[in-house]
């Protein structure tokens, strides 16, 4: 079949107005169905005619999935809440700034107006071999074109690879990890909750998916526990351009301190692995450490232990190391 791009193939469109109806449609059509949120990643796939769902379930009309609710336990953010809403929400800005900050770093204003938090953390990788429609492992084939000796892999991963070396492109994902967020997944009639860290799946586990979402699943809610409210936060994204770009490396951190010491810390990095990486060992090492440059340097070094760069992305090792340093340095 000859290749042609930029014309979406035909599909059936359903526009449910309730989560029940949406879940039912997803259940009904299973593997044929595609849940459409902001549509930015989805329409790329459709216009490339690489992913061709028979049925598209447009969630934009499901008001239950929108908006941010403040509860005693923290914040409940509907999966369809736009990134602009996340970026501007007062409680988020005051108590969980790392997430608002991360949202502000996504692409462009228009994309933040359309794009949703759920979509941002569920989007597919940007590996340019995979996106070219090549039959790589992730596409159900038997090759990783990006890790071949002569391949161009400047933006690929330095850890967590397993045959596939793509990276997770989400800007908000590391922030959710740093906040111990919990997401809710609706599947037919059933609901289950998953820790943000476990929401993301590496290629060793399933090389064809970035998240736990399988056909019939619907991401409905992101819960931000109050545990980290008002902590010291740090978010940084390094990208080639000032806008409309994915992170080369991004870091999100949450810290509680007392008297010049770090009580507890959360550190997550994205752009370095096929999934956002939570730096557990560094977090443990930081617990009780004195704030300052020395601790920052040690944390940076520890963060990149075991990194295995590809031919063109060796720079990501010092970059990740330095960004972790800066995150820890910011505590003071």
């Amino acid at each position, binding site marked *: 079949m000859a290749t042609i791009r930029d014309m979406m193939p*035909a599909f059936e*469109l359903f526009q449910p107005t309730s989560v029940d109806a949406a879940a*039912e449609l997803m259940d009904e059509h299973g593997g044929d169905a595609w849940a459409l949120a902001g549509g930015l990643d989805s329409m790329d796939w459709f216009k490339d005619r690489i992913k061709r769902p028979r049925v598209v379930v447009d969630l934009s009309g499901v008001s239950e999935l929108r908006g941010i609710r403040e509860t005693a336990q923290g914040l409940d953010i509907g999966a369809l809440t736009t990134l602009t809403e996340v970026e501007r929400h007062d409680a988020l800005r005051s108590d969980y700034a790392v997430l608002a900050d991360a949202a502000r770093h996504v692409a462009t204003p228009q994309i933040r107006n359309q794009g949703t938090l759920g979509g941002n953390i569920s989007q597919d990788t940007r590996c340019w071999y995979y996106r070219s429609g090549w039959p790589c492992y992730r596409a159900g084939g038997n090759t990783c074109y990006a890790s071949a000796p002569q391949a161009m892999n400047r933006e690929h991963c330095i850890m967590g690879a397993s045959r596939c070396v793509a990276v997770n492109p989400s800007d908000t994902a590391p922030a959710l990890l740093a906040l111990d967020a919990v997401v809710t997944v609706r599947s037919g009639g059933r609901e289950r909750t998953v820790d943000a860290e476990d929401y993301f799946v590496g290629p060793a586990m399933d090389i064809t998916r970035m998240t736990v979402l399988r056909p019939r699943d619907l991401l409905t809610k992101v819960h931000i526990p109050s545990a980290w409210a008002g902590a010291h936060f740090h978010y940084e994204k390094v990208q080639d351009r000032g806008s409309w770009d994915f992170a080369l490396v991004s870091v999100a951190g949450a810290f509680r301190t007392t008297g010049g010491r770090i009580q507890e810390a959360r550190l997550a990095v994205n752009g370095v692995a096929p999934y956002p990486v939570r730096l557990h060992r560094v977090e443990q090492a930081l617990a009780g450490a004195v704030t300052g440059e020395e601790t920052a340097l040690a944390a940076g070094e520890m963060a990149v232990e075991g990194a295995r760069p590809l031919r063109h992305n060796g720079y990501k090792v010092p970059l990740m190391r330095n960004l972790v340093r800066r995150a820890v340095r910011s505590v003071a």
Partner: protein
Amino acid sequence: MDEVVVTRTLERSVSRRTFIKGVIAAGAATSSAGYLLRGSTGLFAATAMQGTAERLITLNVNGQQRRVDVLPNETLAMTLRYKLGLTGTKLGCDRAECGACTVLVDGVSQYACSTLTHQVRGRAVTTVEGLEDRQSGALHPVQQAVLDEGGFQCAFCAPGFIMSMVALVDANPAPTREAAAHALSGNLCRCGDYDKILNCAMRAAELARRV
């Protein structure tokens, strides 16, 4: 596709409203034989799908109610340009990257190339053609500002930038130059007229404050 499927899908446990929406959306999947031989308007006519469910929907564009035949996989940019003749909205990349297709949906800037037309049913769409004052025909303050500052070169990006500027001055009457730059960072100008474009944005905010 046929209505029956939709009905069966949604009837159970689902509100009447949802059910109807489903039908409309599904119905819009059908081809419109009437358009088959009218290339200029039938851009999206005739796809693989057949059926006889309702296909016309009403869009609110620039304050007018427009009845239009829309397919499920049709983007707002295509509907505006090829069905409603509003060619001011440009297709620079069709991939939500360049901003030439920027329009306002309920006053919020969006990429029309990456919005399904069915997603804006019942919402107010504003394009560059809708900015001038309908009575006096006077230019919108943003357009006036661009005229005063002699903004843009090839201007293929201009309609998109102008819509982003409108969104900016509506949201922030007194932006700093930096805030303006961030507000316009979703639009690309290959002529590199950014300095002048920022002058336009600052002037636009000034004019908007006066009215």
